[in-house]
């Protein structure tokens, strides 16, 4: 077995198989597992995917939302067990792979047109 196959066989046990297909521009809802003392709860986080990064076990997405007038961006490791569930709420029509220009826009200008050709 060559190097790449060996590494992939090790990673295979840790990869999630039930991830939805996520595109840049989508509005998604992520459940984040948070441990407080010895209680665990799931905190929802909703926003627009502005970037995808990496591949395989290393793949991440950057999700941006505006909370109380302050822009918040969180990077999620897609295959992490700390992510409970990811739900795609809305498919967006964008012409960039990275939507970093949204950082300079406010209010109405940050809207992304919905696209209907991709199933949710």
């Amino acid at each position, binding site marked *: *077995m060559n*190097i790449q196959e*060996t*590494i992939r*066989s*090790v*990673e295979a*046990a*840790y990869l999630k198989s039930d991830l939805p297909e996520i595109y840049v521009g989508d509005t998604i809802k992520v459940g984040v*597992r948070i*441990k407080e003392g010895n209680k665990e709860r799931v905190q929802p986080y909703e926003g627009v995917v502005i970037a995808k990064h990496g591949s395989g*076990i*290393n793949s991440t997405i950057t999700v941006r939302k505006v909370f109380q007038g302050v822009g918040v961006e969180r990077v999620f*490791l897609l*295959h*992490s*067990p*700390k992510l409970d569930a990811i739900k795609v709420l809305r498919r967006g029509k964008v012409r960039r792979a990275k939507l970093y220009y949204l950082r300079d826009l406010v209010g109405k200008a940050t809207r992304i047109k919905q696209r209907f050709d991709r199933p949710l």
Partner: protein
Amino acid sequence: MSLGLLGTKVGMTQIFDGEGNVIPVTIVKAGPCTVTQIKTKPIDGYTAVQLGYGEVGSATRTLNTKEPKTVNKYLSNAELGHLAKAGAAPLRHLREYRLHDTGSYQLGQQIDVTIFQEGQLVDIAGTSIGRGFAGNQKRHHFGRGPMSHGSKNHRLHGSVGAGTTPGRVFPGVRMPGRLGGSACTVKKIQLVKIDPEQNLLLLKGSVPGKAGSLVSIAPANIVGKAK
């Protein structure tokens, strides 16, 4: 003073622990190794077990002598004879592990990753990545000169000593030269996971050398252990 294992570095990736935290791991394909010699006190003056690793196969080459001879492409007849005593296949790498008691090992015995336990601390010995002739910034972590404002000193090492007295450069002054490609041991690395089917060890963090290089994995030698 315990038996280790020889292996090949495969590469790095990351896995998750029970709580979902990311652990960076290096994958090492270790063993199975063959016991090729057992050193004993009366004959060798010390006790140790010699392990062989890395089968080379039986490809041959022809010697350009008066009467052309066909020999193994990778190993000399002397090396092959040494391995034949243990009944081992042609192996490229041999390494000794000093042991107090070699009684439980026989010539030709196969040693594999099951000698380790998950969670154990190990020492990894290998060859660091060769960086050729390197300057003082890379080799000795010197600072750098200003890049602008008329400065002509960007990556030079600066003064190497005083003037007429002593009139020479003291030995040991840090200077540019060959970096890397030397023996290197990283101590107390956690063994995260063992895969006996594929002979794989998953070690937390990085280990010396490039992918494909030879490494030796041995249980951690903890110096000055609490009484």
